[in-house]
């Protein structure tokens, strides 16, 4: 079956050429389907003599498509228009894709016995949606309609590049159809064709017959069959039908080459170019070249490649970027640039000359080839996989394809949503399911640790569980026809929920972002209507603070604190202490310090106390409390006997209590001492990469529980297994000592690869416990040891005794040793 796709710059005469080709094909005895892929819906106007209803927005697939196919007055011709949204809204490319998918799924062309299909696609290809006709097995022959004007040729050049991207699907450029403004323009087009290694299939010239035919809504080959245009069109159609796969594929000009061509340089000599024909380029040679020049891949950042460059002066982080995307200060080579990464620090500048010399060895490589080196075979944890799958930010503890950490770094500061604020998410259903509690690794849980007791173990609920975090559930129809109404309604609802003076955050997900939905205009409109400022945030920033977001939140919270102000009736308010306040409140009470009971109104609870006792650093909350004139304290975490005493002392000191007794009760001390004696001779181990030693010092790791200190207080030995090269051992050992001042432990055991951990771990018989934030961590159980995490640590003096009891129970538990040790 003849299947031709016409592309070309808008206004170049593409629809005129395409519809007339359709007529000529039909006159040749074929049954032809003419497919308009332009939201303007005018491709079929000449063939139908009227506008036809488009397919856009219809749901239901193939059957509904048939309803959108109309018979033309021209014998043998049927027409369908994809249609699309009004200009500037929705996504026309998606609409075209959906219609063509339905056409393919339903087998329309085959079932209806068409002998030819002509696709007339919107002026320029602005996104992948408009390339939908080129998807595998759908249409293979591409004709680009162009005139001799620079803009038209520029569009043609880009379309040639697009065609190359789909060469893997068997798509090929048949050639150019020139619709020249002037007869001599044909020569310009021919020169361009030669420069890009293609041919001119035929040329038409400006002809009054065409304008006349358009006014009559008829194809010119029918209304003026003897015109010059009709004669040339018939020849063009014959050439299109005869065109086969070129022996060497065309090659689009680079920007520089195109400028040269337009400027009279004529462009490069036509030369074959290896178009994309499936698979990825061989990576062996680029990989070797990179390695020999001292560059090893370190990551991808914003589409730029990060390399660690090893020089005689040390290792420096560098950036290799496409020339078009490079920033100031980078030096160009081939089609890419190189510079030091900001993290390399100012000292790196002294070695700029050496970097350029090393980069000069890579000159034979184009950026594409350097990128392709990412695909170098390297087993599971090969560079592309490791880098593509290594999440940044809050999930950096889980490197996909690489060795997950035993100790999740956590977040050093809290970024909790202010109580009473509203956080609406404008996204699709996949977005809605981007959070989950529990799971195999617990890696995505808010509380990434195993808690005792099955009933307390977090498990998934139907997202979004918090009614203050709803999701709009974007659907296909809204993507095609525009999501303005849905977004507006959602914002109005969020604003109403927040109320005057409230805080409504509206998170725009990936799909609306791609649709370029104008959330800003909607927010301004809703703000004007309701008086509520709807602040816009980009996807994935729910748990992160930008300075602007932090400021808005702090101002909102400060206002709420001020409005709730009253005469304090309690000494302290425990802020964000989670599920454990009852014991801590009782402890405070036993020492004469009154604590506010948790209630419905967060702000009123704070106002009822003279001192806000925070559980973790929270810059937004701290700023809001300062602005509202409320005193706050961030004491040490109340874990272990010493930690709890320090917590009490800090609170008492802030309250001005003199002669305060913060010591543990005698009975508690005795119980702890009895348990401590049982702990003699057993150890708990920590496994970490060398660079993670600082995690042990505090910050967000261990849910802010001082795990090593509590273990040591309980009499358990501490052992450290560090993933490091032997050469780095001394440095890593020093880092451990620095991170845990005052704690005694033997020299760490080093291992050089993840596979090398099991043997030393198993060999140390004193080690009964291994810390891991991963549930039932198989790496621990396979060594016959028992994993534990901060989830079993309880606060307060009684909690210290209970924690030690639990740890010793785990030490006595030989289940893993008996059944899973390998």
């Amino acid at each position, binding site marked *: 079956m003849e299947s031709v796709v016409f592309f070309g710059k808008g206004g170049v005469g593409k629809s005129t050429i395409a519809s007339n080709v359709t007529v000529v094909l039909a006159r040749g005895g074929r049954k032809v389907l003419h497919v308009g892929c332009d939201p303007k819906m005018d491709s079929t106007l000449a063939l139908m003599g009227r506008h036809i209803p488009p397919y856009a927005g219809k749901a239901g697939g193939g059957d509904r498509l048939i309803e959108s196919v109309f018979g033309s007055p021209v014998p043998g011709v049927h027409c369908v228009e994809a249609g699309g949204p009004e200009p500037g809204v929705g996504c026309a490319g998606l609409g075209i894709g959906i219609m063509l998918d339905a056409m393919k799924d339903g087998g329309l062309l085959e079932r209806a016995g068409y002998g030819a299909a002509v696709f007339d696609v919107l002026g320029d290809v602005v996104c992948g949606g408009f390339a939908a006709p080129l998807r595998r097995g759908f249409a293979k022959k591409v004709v680009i309609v162009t005139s001799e004007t620079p803009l038209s040729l520029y569009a043609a050049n880009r379309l040639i590049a697009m065609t190359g991207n789909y060469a893997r699907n068997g798509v090929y450029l048949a050639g150019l159809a020139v619709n020249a403004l002037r007869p001599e323009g044909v020569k310009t087009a021919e020169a361009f064709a030669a420069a890009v290694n293609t041919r001119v299939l035929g040329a038409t010239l400006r002809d009054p017959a065409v304008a006349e035919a358009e006014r009559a809504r008829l194809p010119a080959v029918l209304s003026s069959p003897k015109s010059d245009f009709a004669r040339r069109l018939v020849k063009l159609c014959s050439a299109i039908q005869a065109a086969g796969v070129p022996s060497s594929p065309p090659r689009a000009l680079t920007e520089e080459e195109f400028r040269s061509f337009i400027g009279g340089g004529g462009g490069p000599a036509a030369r074959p170019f290896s178009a994309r024909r499936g698979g990825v380029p061989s990576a062996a040679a680029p990989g070797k070249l990179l390695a020999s020049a001292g560059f090893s891949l370190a990551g991808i950042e914003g*589409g730029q490649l990060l390399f660690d460059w090893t020089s005689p002066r040390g290792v420096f982080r560098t950036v290799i970027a496409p020339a078009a995307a490079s920033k100031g200060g980078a030096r160009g080579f081939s089609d890419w640039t190189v510079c030091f990464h900001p993290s390399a620090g100012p000292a790196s500048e002294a070695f700029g000359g050496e970097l350029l010399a090393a980069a000069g060895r890579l000159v034979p490589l184009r950026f594409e080839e350097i990128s392709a080196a990412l695909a170098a075979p390297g087993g599971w944890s090969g560079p592309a996989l490791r880098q593509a799958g290594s999440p940044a930010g809050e999930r950096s503890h889980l490197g996909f394809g690489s060795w997950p950490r035993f100790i999740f770094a956590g977040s050093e500061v809290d970024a909790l949503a202010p109580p009473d604020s509203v956080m609406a998410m404008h996204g699709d*259903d996949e977005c*809605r399911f981007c959070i989950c509690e529990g799971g195999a690794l617990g890696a995505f849980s808010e509380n990434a640790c195993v808690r005792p007791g099955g009933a307390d173990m977090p498990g998934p609920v139907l997202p979004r569980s918090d009614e203050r975090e709803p999701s709009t559930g974007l659907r296909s129809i809204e993507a095609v026809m525009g999501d303005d109404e849905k977004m507006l309604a959602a914002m109005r609802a969020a604003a109403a929920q927040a109320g005057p003076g409230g805080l409504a955050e509206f998170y725009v997900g990936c799909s609306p972002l*791609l649709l370029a939905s104008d959330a800003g205009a909607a927010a301004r409109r809703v703000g004007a209507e309701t008086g509520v400022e709807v602040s816009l945030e980009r996807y994935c920033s729910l748990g992160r603070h930008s300075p602007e977001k932090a400021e808005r939140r702090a101002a909102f919270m400060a206002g709420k604190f001020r409005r709730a102000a009253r005469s304090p009736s309690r000494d302290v308010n425990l802020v964000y202490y989670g599920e454990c306040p009852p014991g801590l409140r009782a402890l405070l009470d036993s020492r004469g310090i009154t604590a506010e009971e948790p209630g419905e109104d967060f702000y009123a609870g704070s106002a009822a106390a003279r001192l806000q006792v925070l559980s973790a650093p929270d810059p937004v909350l701290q700023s809001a409390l300062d602005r509202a004139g409320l005193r706050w304290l961030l004491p040490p975490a109340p874990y272990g006997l010493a930690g709890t005493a320090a917590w009490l002392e800090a609170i008492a000191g802030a309250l001005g209590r003199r002669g305060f007794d913060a010591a543990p009760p005698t009975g508690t001390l005795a119980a702890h001492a009895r348990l401590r004696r049982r702990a003699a001779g057993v150890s708990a181990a920590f496994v970490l990469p060398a660079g993670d030693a600082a995690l042990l010092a505090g910050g967000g790791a261990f849910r802010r529980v001082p795990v090593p200190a509590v273990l040591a207080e309980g009499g358990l030995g501490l052992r450290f297994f560090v993933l490091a090269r032997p050469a780095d051992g001394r440095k890593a050992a020093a880092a451990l000592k620095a991170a845990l001042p005052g704690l005694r432990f033997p020299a760490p055991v080093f291992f050089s690869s993840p596979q090398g951990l099991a043997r030393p771990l198993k060999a140390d018989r004193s080690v009964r416990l291994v810390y891991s934030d991963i549930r039932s961590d198989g790496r621990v159980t396979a060594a016959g040891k028992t994993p534990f995490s901060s989830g079993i640590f309880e606060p307060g003096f009684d909690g210290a005794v209970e924690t030690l009891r639990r740890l010793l129970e785990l030490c006595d538990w030989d289940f893993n040793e008996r059944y899973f040790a390998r």
Partner: protein
Amino acid sequence: MNATSRADLFPKLFSLPYQLGVYLAVNAVSDAGLVVDGGDCVMPKADFIAGNHDLRSTLLSPYGKHRIVCTMTAPLPQDSNHERKLSSLLAEVAADGGFSAVLVTGLPFFKLAGVDYEGVAAGITKGSPVADVPALSLEAGWLEGYDLALEALVRLLPAPRRRGRRPGKRPRVAVAGYLFDRGERDHTANLAELGRLLALSGLELVSVLPSGVPFRELARGLEADLVVSLPYGRRAAARLAARSGAALLETGLPMGLKGTSAWLAALRRAAGLRGGLPAAVAAEESMAAGEMAPLLDVLAHRGAVFAGDPHLFGAFVPFAGELRLRVPAAALDSGVREKLPVRPPQLLLLRPDMAAAAAAVAALGGYDKPQLLVGNSFAATEGLAPGLPFVELGFPSYGHHCLNDEPFLGFSGARTLAGRLANALRSGNGPR
């Protein structure tokens, strides 16, 4: 505007996303891998299965060898050629050697951008075979995702060997489109029961797609004389039959006593066997009935609310009728449905707003007031029928795990499920 009207605008729908179905299909083939084009926000969806619903899942690994990998790509910053990066990653995963088959799909915004997953997959010619699962999250739900992922796997199966005639041998049957949502002993017991019953019926079960086995073992389905299409994988079953030239029979789930016998009889007919079911099958049915009978009075004239997937619902309602248990209300977590039961419940809600559904269930009064909740975890956690005894069934089941055989299909399944229903009513195990 008050909170109620806001809830109307932001209903929490009883529905599951498309990709969760894709993940379930990958979970069910022990050495399949999946590359998801998107940010790391796609990964928590694996936790809705691994470790929460399926304690035996290997989707995620503490060694880092996850079977789901994401490209860490977002709309911004834009890549100059995103497909090239995807191709590189896909080529590496395919070449890894740890997967026998690799699927690729993407977040909806990539569909908006027109990413050609089919072409990208076809461009990977080395290593494990790669197929695309269309990125239909904006149009379809989890059941379509499951079916399309299975269909993609069937596309990757090696070319079938010629099926020779086997005179005197039992006809070979492949069951395709089974919802093997976890590797626990509810499903392994179901499969054992189906194999046993087919053997009693003069048939040989050669393959169940999927069943937790490695990808290459699924190729045995191409040797079958008859492909039985279960509702979770109509497309996959049709493609399997088309590839092998086997006969295709579309059925529901073999649940309950009569339902199981009718299913077996249909299979025999489609396989060309003459006569009714063998006496051994009838004896099994009678024996199961005899064991269930003493408990049936517990269930008689009671009402159950069902909440779960439509295919399970389609099989459960006739079974409930067999037990004299009414189903006055149901909430289904997918818009996909093939046919409603002969006597649909008076309250049937598709992908409902859970708050509204709970209110509708609470409004059931008089003799329609239900006494039992049967359904997935979300039915309980969302308070669909608070206080009622709860039998957790279907995906997801976060609160009920099977360390022992607990089938729910076939005659054994009828016995086991009837026992669970009756025990829940007798013990009044709600509320959760």
